[in-house]
């Protein structure tokens, strides 16, 4: 059993004046990728979280790319660790939370 706290970027441009960072305590059966941790939050803690779910989960498609502790990485290829902060890349138009407009 792994316990960790991860912090996610939340912003709904329609209702929120500004974005915020929200922390979640999660428990998983073992080590998980950052993407799996995000999905875990959505399924088990907060169903209002928006994120992209059509990823290839093996580092090929690139759509799960986020800022992890300030560095742009593929969330499917990165192991989730306690204290991580996950945000969309800078200068992107936010649709909601971790979903931003694609080119």
């Amino acid at each position, binding site marked *: 059993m792994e316990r960790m706290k991860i912090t996610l970027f939340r912003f709904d441009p329609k*209702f929120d004046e500004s974005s915020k960072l929200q922390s979640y305590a999660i428990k998983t059966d073992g080590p998980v990728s950052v993407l799996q941790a995000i999905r875990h939050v959505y399924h088990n803690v907060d*169903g209002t979280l928006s994120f992209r779910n059509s990823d290839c989960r093996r580092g090929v498609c690139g759509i799960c790319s986020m800022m992890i502790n300030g560095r742009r990485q593929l969330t499917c290829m990165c192991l989730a660790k306690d204290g991580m902060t996950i945000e969309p890349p800078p200068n992107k138009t936010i649709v909601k939370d971790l979903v931003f407009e694609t080119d």
Partner: protein
Amino acid sequence: MPTGSADRIYETDVLVIGGGGGGLRAAIGAHKAGARVLVLSKGIVGKSGLTQTAVTGFQVAFGYADSRDNPEIHYGDSIRGGYGLADPELARIFCDEAIEAVEDIEGFGARFDRDANGHFIQRKLDSSQTYPRSIKKGDSLGTPIMQALRREMNRREIPRMHEILVTKLLKDGKRITGAIALDFQKGEMIEIRAGAIVMATGGAGELFPVHSNTPDSTGDGYSLALNAGAELVDIEFLLMLGHAVLHPATVRGVLFTFQYLLTKGAKPLFNSEGEAFLSKYDPEGSDNPARHIYARAIYGEVRAGRGSPHGGAFFDPGSVSRETLMEALPSQTKYLESFGVDITKPIEVGAAAHYVCGGIKINPQSQSTIPGLYAVGECSGGPHGAGRIGGNSLTEILVFGKRAGTEAAKFANRQNMVTPNSEEVSLEVNKVKSLLNRRHTGARPNIIKTRLQKLMNDYVGVVRNEEGLRNTIEEFERMINEDLPNMAIAEENPIGNYDWVEALEVTSMVQLAKAMAGAALMRTESRGAHFREDYPALDDKNWLKNIHIYQKRNDPSLIFDARARKKAPEYAMAQKGSS
């Protein structure tokens, strides 16, 4: 906006639903034939679907590795691999047109591995291939194929829309008139008026807890087609592979194609007692049998108490040198290592849902049983029958993608556009929106999905029996009557609301699961990817038949219809040879 009308309306000649390899190939084909084309995807067009993750290889009978190989031998392998149930005409088409398909995709800029003479390097995956036939690009063949298709899409400036879930196909009498869809990032309903539609929605791995697919492989296309009155065929043949990595959870379900290492001296799969066991389960006694034998053999070992800790068997990548490993499977090896897997020690591999061999029944023009509705790739049915041999899927999407696109364009050109019935549109728009507006107290969609996945795994997976299937179908009916109408969505905000999407997906998934289990119950024999422990033998006398599934107009009950297939000479010869 009046209640019930769509937020936006689009018009096109050919609507392609799905942004993977089959969808893109169809879009290019339709555009080349002069049609206006629009491509929709649940993900990002060109970056969604399974084609991009393809590793194994791509079967094309050039005969470079062995000059005895040719399309006729490829065809024979495909008919035998489909245990006599593939539609011979369709199998013949993709074997015969495979070389042209490679020329086309190279024309779009893809390059595959060649030897010093400029010939494609061809490998043999397993015993289902008579000669080495799979062409490759390192160990990640999907990447160059998708890059080339994206480039050609861009060159042709084919319009596309991302993150759109189609919820209904629209018809006027027998003709397709368009589709209704949810643009889930904007939270808007859209209507697309179309002269013809190509379904390229992929498979349904997400019906199972462990699968090799992407998480959005929820089988929407099968339900859309069924609800529009089209026939499905052969969907009881769900290919479970035995070479998915089972542990750690970070990589669970991802394929490790160690079969290519077996010819390079790797130790065959072994159980917890260190014994090789595959040959015991293969009628031909091979240590590297056809893919569906793997899952069944591992299941047998697990049930006998000789499984690995996570319900699989062991493969030891350390039984070959690191150079061999990196030469044969570079990206797969690097991927596992990036998650801390020690590649010098045995790893746990086991069953994962991989491929629905059947699907929307197509004819040689790639058309479904509904005029104007076409299908390509995993969502289509007919070319593979009871089992798909490794590397035939890419061949199929390129060959039938081109056909589907070209034929859909011709169909759309021949007809005048018919405006969809506004009543039909408003009924669907209201139905989808009402999922959001009601305050329900039931389970969230993902809870229902988890329930469904467990049932599929336990009773409709590697091994099936009558009692399990009957109980499961009853439970699916209960879910349809009780769980689905009470599904609770996390919030009412329509923007980027993934629970809304999942609610629609789960509704399709239960319908498909029920169809798959129903066909598996009807088929009282074991054949190819379908194994019944209460009917473990192949029964050609009674079951050389394809099960077709359809619904009557305005009636959601499924009709299962088994129709006889004439014994193909290639299959008859195989039966004689093995007896």
